[in-house]
C-alpha cells in the first residue's frame, strides 16, 4: 500500500524533490522489508538458537540455565533404537517416515495426474478445479475429525457398506493403533493433493506451446511428450510443491490428533506431538527442545542439499 502511495506524493511537486524522490525510491524497499526482516531474525532464528541452548539444559516446566551437556541427546539417541516395546520417540520417527513418505509422494503423484487430466482442455474445468482445491480451505482439525467419523467402523464407511449388504467388508484402520497412521496419511492426502494439482496446473499452463508443437511435428507420442518435455520443464514446480508438502508433513499436529483421538496405545506419535507433549504437558522442556532440534537438523539434512543442487543448476 505504501509503495503505491509514494509516486503519487512525488508527482504532486516533482521538481525540487527529484533527488529526494530517487533516494526515497531507492531506500523504500529496504525500509519496507526491514521490520519483517528484524521480526524473522528474532522470532525465527533467535528462537532457534534459544531452543538449541535449552536442549543442553535440564529445563523442566520453565526454562533454566543448568547445563547438563549432551544428556538429553543421549536419552533420545537410546530411545531411537528401542523398538520392543517401542519407545514414543521410536514410534514418532517410524510414523514420520511412513506418514511423510506416503503423504509427499502420493500428493505429488495425485496432484500431477489430476493436473494433467484437467489440462486436456475438458469442459467444466472451471467447476472441477475449485472442487479439487476446496479441501485446502478446511482446517486440518476439521478435516481430521471428518475423516475420523467417516472411517469409524461403528458409524462410518464400514457400517454403510454393511447396511448395503456387503457384510464381510472390514475397514477398521482408524481404531487399530497399528494402522492409524495410514488413516492420517489418507486424510492429509485428501486435503493437500488438490493444492498440489493447482501448482502443477499453473506450471502446465506456463509451458510454451511452440515447444509442444515442435515435438508433435517430430512425431513424439503424448506419453513421451509428458515424460521427456513437460515434466522436466516443470522441475521448479516440483521444488516448490516438495518444500510446501515437506513442511506440512513435518509440522502436522492437529491432523494426527484429530484423526487418531489423542494417541491411543502411543501408536500415533509424530515428532511434532512428541515435542509438544514433552515441552508443554509433561514439563520436560529440555527433552522437547532436543527433539525439536533433531527435527530441524533432519529437515536441514534433507532440504539443504536438495535446495543447493536445484538452485545451483538454475544459475548454470
Amino acid at each position: 500500500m505504501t509503495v503505491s502511495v509514494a509516486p503519487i506524493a512525488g508527482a504532486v511537486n516533482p521538481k525540487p524533490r527529484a533527488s529526494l524522490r530517487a533516494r526515497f525510491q531507492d531506500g523504500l524497499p529496504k525500509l519496507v522489508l526491514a521490520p519483517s526482516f528484524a521480526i524473522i531474525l528474532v522470532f525465527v532464528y533467535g528462537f532457534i538458537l534459544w531452543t538449541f541452548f535449552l536442549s543442553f539444559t535440564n529445563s523442566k516446566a520453565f526454562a533454566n540455565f543448568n547445563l547438563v551437556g549432551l544428556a538429553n541427546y543421549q536419552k533420545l539417541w537410546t530411545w531411537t533404537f528401542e523398538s520392543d516395546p517401542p519407545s514414543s520417540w521410536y514410534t514418532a520417527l517410524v510414523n514420520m517416515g511412513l506418514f511423510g513418505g506416503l503423504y509427499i509422494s502420493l500428493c505429488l503423484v495425485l496432484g500431477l495426474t489430476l493436473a494433467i487430466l484437467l489440462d486436456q482442455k475438458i469442459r467444466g474445468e472451471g467447476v472441477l478445479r475449485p472442487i479439487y482445491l476446496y479441501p485446502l480451505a478446511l482446517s486440518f482439525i476439521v478435516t481430521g475429525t471428518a475423516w475420523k467419523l467417516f472411517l469409524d467402523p461403528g458409524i462410518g464407511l464400514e457400517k454403510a457398506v454393511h447396511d448395503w449388504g456387503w457384510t464381510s467388508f472390514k475397514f477398521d484402520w482408524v481404531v487399530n493403533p497399528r494402522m492409524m497412521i495410514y488413516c492420517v496419511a489418507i486424510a492429509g492426502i485428501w486435503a493437500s493433493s488438490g493444492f498440489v494439482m493447482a501448482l502443477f496446473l499453473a506450471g502446465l499452463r506456463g509451458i510454451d506451446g511452440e515447444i509442444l508443437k515442435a515435438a508433435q511435428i517430430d512425431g513424439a507420442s503424448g506419453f513421451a511428450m509428458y515424460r521427456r518435455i513437460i515434466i522436466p520443464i516443470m522441475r521448479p514446480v516440483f521444488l516448490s510443491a516438495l518444500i510446501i508438502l515437506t513442511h506440512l508433513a513435518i509440522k502436522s499436529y492437529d491432523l494426527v490428533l484429530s484423526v487418531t483421538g489423542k494417541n491411543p496405545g502411543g501408536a500415533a506419535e509424530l515428532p511434532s506431538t512428541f515435542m509438544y507433549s514433552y515441552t508443554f504437558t509433561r514439563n520436560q522442556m529440555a527433552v522437547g527442545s532436543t527433539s525439536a532440534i533433531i527435527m530441524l537438523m533432519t529437515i536441514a539434512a534433507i532440504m539443504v542439499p536438495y535446495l543447493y543442487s536445484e538452485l545451483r543448476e538454475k544459475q548454470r
Partner: protein
Amino acid sequence: MKLRTMLLASAMAASAAGFAASVHAADIKEVQMLHWWTSGGEAAALNVLKQDLAKEGYTWKDVPVAGGGGEGAMTALKAMVAAGNPPTASQILGYYAVDYAEAGKLGDITELAKKEGWDKVVPTALQKFTTTNGKWDAVPVNIHSVNWVWINKAVMDKIGGTEPKNFDDFVALLDKAKAAGVIPLALGGQPWQEATMFDSVVMSTGGSDFYKKAFVDLDESALKSDTMKKAFDNLAKLRAYTDPNYAGRDWNLATAMVIKGDALVQVMGDWAKGEFKAANKEAGKDFVCYRFPGTDGSVIYNTDMFAMFKVPADRQAAQLALADATMSISFQSAFNVVKGSVPARMDVPDTAFDMCGKKGIADVKAANASGKFVGSMAQNYAQPPAIAGAYHDVVTKFFHGEIKTSDSAVTELIKAINAAK
C-alpha cells in the same frame, strides 16, 4: 500527504494502545481469570462465582484461551507468566500448581486462610497442592474422584446384576452383560482414560497402602511386585469386555453409550455424572454409581484449583475477594451440585446433592480420617506430569498390546519412571 497521514495515524494508534494498557493497570476492581469452564453446566456454575464477586463490586474478566481443553490453557498460562503478566488467578491442576509455586510465581493468601481456618476443612492430602512450605497460594474448588463406576440401571435390572463388591464380582457382572448381548464396558481408548481406569484397578488389587507405596512413594519394590503384575493382568482382563471400536473414543461418547443403554458400565471420574445430568437422567433411578469394586472407603482424588498468582499490590484485594468467594460454603455447594464433584471443604452440608454426591461427600470425610484419601496417578495428583506421562505411556501400550506381558509392563514402568525423574 497520505504517507504522513498514515504515519500519524499509526503513531496515534500506538499511543492509544499504550494508553489503554496504562488504564488497564490502574483498574483494581477486576478479577482476571484464566479457565476452560466455557461450556454448559460448568459455565453456569462459574456464573455463581461471578455474581458473588459482582455483589462485592468486582468485575470479572475471562482471559480468552484458544481451544477447548486444559492443555491449551496451560500453554497460554505459561506464556502469560513467562511474559510477567499473570492473571489474577487461573484454574490449575495438580502438579502444575506446585511447578508455579516452586518457580516463585504464586502469591500468598495465608492470612485469609488462617482467618477462615481452611486447614481444618480442606482434606489434609489435598493441601499439598494448595500450600507451599505452609503458605497458602491456591484454593481448591472441588474434589473429583476417579474410582467410580457408572451403570445404566435399566440394563443392570435386565441382566439381573447386583452391586459388585470386588474385582472378581465385577468380571462376573461384565460376563453377564456380555451373555445378554450388551457391550459390557464402555471405554474410550485414549491414554489418559486407560490410565485413569488403571488407578482404580491398582487400588482394587492392592489396597490403598499398596497404592500409596507404589504411586505416591514410587517404591521400586512395590512397583515391580507381584501385586502390580496382578493389577496389570486384571487390566488385561477388562480389555475383553470393550467393543472393538473403542480406540481413540472420547470419554463423553463412552458415557453416552451407558446413558443410551448400549453399554452397561463405564469406569470414569465423577465428571461423567455431568453427562447423565445433561441427558436428564436421575441418580438412583436411571443410573447408579458405585465405587470401583474393591475400592469402597478409599478416594482417589483429583481437584480443580484456582492458583493465585503473584500480582502487584493494587490487584491483591481483588485476588483475596476471589479466594474468599471461592471458598464460601454457598459457592462450594452450588458449584459442585452442577459440576458433579463434591465440595473441597468437608463442612459443606450435603442436602442439595443427589445420592452419588452424598456418597462422595461421606467418602471424602471417611477417607480423609482413615488416610485412604490419595491422589490420582493418571490425573497428575500422585506424581509430577513427567512421571504421570510415563505412566500413561506404559499403561496404554500395555492395553493396546504393544507391551505384551505384565512382567515386561512392570519393567517398562520402572524404566519409564526413572527416565522421567
